[in-house]
C-alpha cells in the first residue's frame, strides 16, 4: 500500500525528451515504476526510447489511462504544465522543476484547489499537486515518481517520511534504510514558498495508511508549515511522529538556498517550530541519526 503512488500507478512524464526528463524517466523505469508515456508539445506521434510521446497531457492520459504526471518542464512553462495536467483531470501531479516564479505558483495552486474541490464535489478523485522544487515521491518496493537515488530505497519498511528538502530526504531515507527500518512512502513536498501540498496535507494520509507505523517530518526554517503540522498532529494523530528541523543556526533575513528557507521577522524561527512540536508532544531530533533512536523509542511504547 503506502500512500499516493504504488505499483498500479500509471505515470506520464511532461518534458520527457529534455535532459532531466529523459534521465529520470529511465531511472523511474529501473525502479519499477510504470512509466507509460511522455508529453512534449510538438513531438507528438514520435517515440522516445520505446515510450510514445504525445502533444498534450489529455491525449496521453486518454491513450494510457494514466493517473500520475511528473513534470520536468523549465521554470517559465512549469506552472502552465501543472494547469494543463490539472485540467486534463490528472489526479496526482508532481512538479520537480526548481525556480518557478512565485506568482505563477500562487495562481496555479489556487486553480488546482478549485479543480480539486469541483472534482470531489462530483464524486471524482480530486486533483493534487506535489511541489514544485521537490524530489517527488516513492513508495518503497513499488513505484518512484521522482528523482531520488534508487539505491537508498532497497529496504521497504513501515516509516512514512515527509520533507521540504531533497537532499535531507535522501539522508533520512538512507538512515532509515541502513537501520533496517525502511520507509513505506517518502513524500518530498518542496522548498519553495508556495507549494501544492503541505505537511498537514500529507499527515492524514499516513495516519490512514495501514502500512505506515510512524512518520518522520523533516522541516526547515521559514514559514509556518511545521507549526501547522504540529497542530494537526496534536489534534488528530495516533501514530507517533518524529521531527527534525534544518537550518537552526541560520541568521535571520538571509535566504538559505531554498526560496522558502528564510526567517522573516518572527515568522519561521526554529524556536517557534520547536515550541510547536513540543506542545504536540513530538520529539525533535538534534541530529539526523537521532531520528532513528527516536523512531525506535516511539514504536516501542
Amino acid at each position, binding site marked *: 500500500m503506502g500512500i499516493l503512488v504504488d505499483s498500479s500507478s500509471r505515470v506520464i512524464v511532461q518534458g520527457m525528451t529534455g535532459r532531466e526528463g529523459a534521465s529520470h524517466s529511465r531511472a523511474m523505469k529501473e525502479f519499477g515504476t510504470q512509466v507509460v508515456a511522455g508529453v512534449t508539445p510538438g513531438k507528438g506521434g514520435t517515440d522516445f526510447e520505446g515510450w510514445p510521446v504525445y502533444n498534450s497531457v489529455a491525449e496521453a492520459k486518454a491513450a494510457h489511462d494514466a493517473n500520475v504526471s511528473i513534470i520536468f518542464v523549465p*521554470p*517559465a512553462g512549469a506552472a502552465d504544465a501543472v494547469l494543463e495536467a490539472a485540467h486534463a483531470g490528472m489526479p496526482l501531479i508532481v512538479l520537480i522543476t526548481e525556480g*518557478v*516564479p*512565485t*506568482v*505563477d505558483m*500562487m*495562481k496555479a*495552486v*489556487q*486553480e488546482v484547489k478549485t479543480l480539486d474541490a469541483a472534482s470531489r464535489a462530483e464524486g471524482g478523485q480530486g486533483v493534487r499537486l506535489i511541489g514544485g522544487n521537490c*524530489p517527488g515521491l516513492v513508495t518503497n518496493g513499488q513505484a518512484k515518481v521522482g*528523482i*531520488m*537515488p534508487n539505491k*537508498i530505497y532497497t529496504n521497504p519498511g513501515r516509516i512514512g517520511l515527509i*520533507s*521540504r*528538502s*531533497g*537532499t*535531507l*530526504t*535522501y*539522508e533520512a531515507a*538512507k538512515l532509515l534504510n541502513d537501520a533496517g527500518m525502511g520507509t513505506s512512502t517518502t513524500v518530498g513536498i518542496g*522548498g519553495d*514558498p*508556495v*507549494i501544492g501540498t503541505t505537511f498537514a496535507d500529507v499527515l492524514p494520509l499516513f495516519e490512514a495508511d495501514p502500512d505506515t507505523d510512524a512518520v518522520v517530518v*523533516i522541516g*526547515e*526554517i*521559514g*514559514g*509556518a*508549515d511545521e507549526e*501547522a503540522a504540529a497542530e494537526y498532529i496534536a489534534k488528530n494523530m495516533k501514530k507517533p511522529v518524529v521531527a527534525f528541523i*534544518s*537550518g*537552526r*543556526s*541560520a*541568521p535571520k533575513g*538571509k*535566504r*538559505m*538556498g*531554498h*526560496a*522558502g*528557507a528564510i526567517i*522573516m*521577522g*518572527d515568522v519561521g524561527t526554529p524556536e517557534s517550530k520547536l515550541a510547536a512540536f513540543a506542545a504536540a508532544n513530538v520529539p525533535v531530533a*538534534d*541530529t*539526523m*541519526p537521532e531520528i532513528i533512536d527516536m523512531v525506535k523509542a516511539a514504536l516501542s511504547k
Partner: protein
Amino acid sequence: MKLHEYQGKEILRQFGVNVQDGKVARTPDEVRQIAREYGQSVVVKAQVHVGGRGKAGGVKFSPTEDKAFENGEKILGMDIKGLTVNKVLVTKAVDIDAGVEYYVGMIVDRNVQSYTLMASAEGGMEIEEVAAATPEKIIKHRVDPVTGLRPYEAREVAIKAGFKGNLNKIADMMVKMSKAALERDAVLVEINPLFVGPDGIPLALDTKFEIDDNAMYRHADLADWRELEAEHPLEIEASTYGFAYVKLDDGNVGVLGNGAGIVMTSLDVVNRAGAKPANFLDIGGGAKADIVYNAVKLVSKDPDVKAIFINIFGGITRADEVAKGVIQALNDGILTKPVRMRIAGTAEDEAKALLAEVGSPLIQMYATMFEAADEAAKDANAAEGK
C-alpha cells in the same frame, strides 16, 4: 532582488500610485541643485539596501538649499551597516503633522499560498515593531492572485484598519499596489508611510519593494537595477558561477554541499562542533568537477575560512566528480586549507579511491558528516589559536 526606495517608487508610479516627488543625487552639488529646483524644504534620504536608515542618520530634513548641500555631504559616503551610501533621494518635504501616516503592504505568505495584504493605522514605523507591540492593529487579508485586490476589498480593509480620509482614493492606491506586486513579481511591497494630508488624498512617502529572483527573466527592463557593489564581493563572484552562496558573519569554517537542505544542516553541524560556519554554499544537483573546483576556489579565497567542510550526499551528484574538483584545486595550488569531507552516495567508492591515490594530508575523508565537521572545527579553531 531588493530595490532602492527611488526604484520602488518608480515602479509604483508606473502603476498610477500617487508618489511623493523626488530625484536621485550622487554629489552634494546635485543635492543642492534639486533643492533649488523644488524651491522648498526637502528630505535627503540615503539609498542603501538596509533597514534603519533613519536611525543611522541617513535621512535628514533640510529646510534650505545650504542645509540640503550640507546633509548631502554628510550622507553621501556614509557607512550604514557596512554599506557605503553612493546615492541619495532628494524629496519634497511634507508637513507630517498636518496629516496622518498609515501602513499598507503585501507579502508572499506561504500559509495562504498567495499574498497577504497588511494595513495598519500605525504608519511610519517598521511593521515588525507594530506586529510585536500591537499585533491587533494590523489588519490582514488574503489577496486572490488571479483577480488581484478588488476596490471593495481594499475599502473593507481600510475601514477595519481605521483609515480616515478619501476612502476611495486610499483604496485605489492599495489596488494599484496590488497590481504592481502581481505584474512585477514582488515578494514584498510596502508603502510606509502612506501619508494622508488634510485634503484626504493619499501620498506614498516611502516604499520597500523586492522582486522574486525566479521571475527576473520577465523583467529584463529592470536588470540594470541589480547592484553588485551592494552585496558581499564573494557573493558577487558566486553569482557568476550560479551558486547559491551566502556569506555568514564571524565564521571560520567554509561549508559546501549539494542541496539547500544538506548545506543548512551542515551549518548546524559545524555550530554543534564548536566552530562557526563562514558561508552557505550549495553547488546544486549534478555538479561536475569544474563546478566543484570553482566552489573550492571561492571558499578558499575567503580570509575568514580556516578549514573547509564538504558534505555530499550524491544522488544526481557523482561523488567522483566532487573528488576530481577538489583534487584539481589541490594540484593547482588553490587549496591551501584543510578540507574535511564526507562523501556518500553515487560513485562513493570511486571518489574514495581517487582521494586515497592523492594521499594529501590536506584532504581527509570521514564516514559521517559529524566526524568531518568535528575535524574541520578543530582545524579551524586551532588555526585561530582557540
